[in-house]
């Protein structure tokens, strides 16, 4: 009887021992106080009250959501046509090398990839040089770096492979003859995509959105390096709490973000279930 659970043991130990334990500690810390750089088990709601009462945190979270939403739309928007092209128009022999090429940036350090963008977007970077060489500008333009668009751009670049892989897995399983059938019956290619393809790869799109958006919500290195004072994300404020020994405030802030992510995941899951139920009724 117990034998069937043996395979579950490593994951349970790993998740229970590492994730579960850390989560419990984080929850406890969020309701405790820090005094003289030490967490003291004095119960309080003060950390949550502070975070929910000071407008900066809501504004920063709003700005974070806006940046993440923009970056997710752009990432999935760029990943979808690529994954579509890969599954539809590339011979199976070439798909694998192209997929490897997509994940190739993972072989370079995360920081190096961000620094590469600083070199591209900076005053002495490739864009400025090209603009000057083309005679469009006389001197370097400082518009491309240390702002929110720079953060969004680098996030799109960093998370594009996640979007491609999630969508590719979904598109690869799709029966393309259905699309052809829809068009044979008079549907335009766009209508066929919208009414036949998208409903069937919905879970893949949601997976891509989840894979891309959730890690972005916790980003703090990218905004730190390319965001300047204008491109701060919620993760930066959380990091400051921990850097300065304010573990309780940091834990509460992290849990508020985690709570939002969980709620968003539940919402996505429900909408998928509802869509599946609607399909089943039809």
């Amino acid at each position: 009887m117990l034998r069937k659970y043996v395979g579950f043991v490593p994951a349970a130990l790993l998740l229970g021992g590492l994730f579960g334990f850390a989560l419990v500690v984080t929850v406890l810390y969020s309701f405790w106080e820090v005094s003289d750089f030490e967490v003291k088990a004095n119960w309080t709601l003060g950390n949550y009250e502070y975070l929910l009462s000071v407008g900066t945190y809501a504004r920063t979270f709003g700005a974070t959501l806006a940046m993440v939403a923009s970056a997710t739309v752009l990432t999935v928007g760029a990943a979808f046509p690529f994954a579509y092209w890969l599954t539809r128009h590339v011979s199976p022999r070439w798909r694998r090398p192209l997929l490897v090429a997509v994940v190739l940036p993972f072989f370079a350090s995360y920081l190096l990839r961000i620094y590469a963008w600083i070199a591209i977007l900076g005053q002495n970077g490739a864009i400025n040089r090209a603009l000057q060489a083309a005679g469009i500008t006389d001197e370097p333009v400082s518009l491309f770096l240390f702002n929110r668009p720079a953060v969004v751009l680098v996030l799109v670049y960093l998370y594009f492979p996640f979007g491609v892989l999630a969508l590719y897995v979904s598109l690869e399983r799709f029966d393309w003859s259905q699309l052809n059938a829809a068009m044979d019956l008079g549907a335009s290619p766009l209508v066929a995509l919208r009414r036949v393809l998208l409903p069937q790869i919905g879970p893949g799109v949601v997976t891509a959105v989840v894979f891309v958006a959730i890690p972005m919500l916790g980003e703090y290195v990218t905004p730190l390096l390319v965001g300047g004072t204008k491109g701060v994300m919620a993760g930066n404020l959380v990091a400051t709490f921990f850097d300065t020994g304010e573990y309780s405030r940091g834990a509460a802030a992290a849990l508020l973000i985690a709570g939002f992510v969980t709620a968003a995941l539940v919402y996505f899951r429900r909408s998928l279930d509802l869509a599946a139920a609607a399909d089943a009724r039809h």
Partner: protein
Amino acid sequence: MHEGVTRRTALRLGAGGAAAAYLAACGGGAGGSEDNRILFKTWEDHYLPEQLTEIRRQDDIAVKVSFIDDNLTNLQQLKRGGRFDVVSADALWVPKFRAEGLIDTLDPDDLSTWKNLYPAARNVSFWTDAGKPTCYPHGWSPHLLYYNPDEVTTPPDSWAALLDRKYRGKVVLPKEPNDILAKAGVATGAAKPFAMTDAELARAKAYLTELKPNILKLAQAGTEEVRAFSEGATVISTILGFDLRMEEAGGPKARGVLPREGTIAFADGEMVVASSPKRSLVNRFLEADFQPEWIAKRFLKYPHPHFDEKAYKLLVDQGHGELADRVLYNRPELPFDPEQVALVAPPPNQTAYTDAYNEVFGA
């Protein structure tokens, strides 16, 4: 903020150079038996890898170095039983280590190099307990305002000058929340910039809010500061030697000025860990570490002032007097003058400092 602090951040960010230095240090000093091994937790400007090799060869002391993340992490690691023999710390963090019972006092009579220190560094009140020093003074550096003379015609010689809208998006500050708040405290006349009252903190926050549009970015590491200065910033508030680092990097020129209102500074020293069972070995190591010849070499690699007067004289004899004076090596009293300098300290109201910082630099 400390040169090592910015460099340790580079380390945390995976900078290869720092990692290489660490490996070199391990390679040069690690090994040896337990009896002759010193565990030294410090910043990278506190030793040279070749110096550790020499100490091993000459004094038969194997030094294993590990880097400090920051003063707070350093303190917490030691409190949780971190096994070290010698640990470095900044200014008013040293009394905190002492109050926690983590460090022992030193006996100057046991250290032949102690007499080489400037008199100003030998009897520092906050580095003394029951008449004995609590650390071996190492070095210091104020935060200057460095500016690009090709872009800035009137030198910004005060914190107030940074508020001028002509510096919009042109100012860089090192990303150290307490240091930033303390600088704002100096700018707004706080009595103790690292221990501001609520009213002083409110004024410092108002100053930073006004300054924020002028800040291009909060630079994370030494190399990030250099990069930001090359990416359009024209003023940066950082420790001594930034002009030399820019020169080395081939970037825009930088010239430093001490702000009129005063500034903040680090001043650090090596502390003997109370739980270390190797007291006599530690003393031998400190003597070997603070040989003026090595201090002079360290100075030439990381040019900020040290507290060792004999090393200063050696540098002058070697023809480096101008450089030494340029970085205030001949002003050992300056870091201990509270009218001009606020030394790095743990704020007693850290929560208020962190909240203020986040409220300014959040969206």
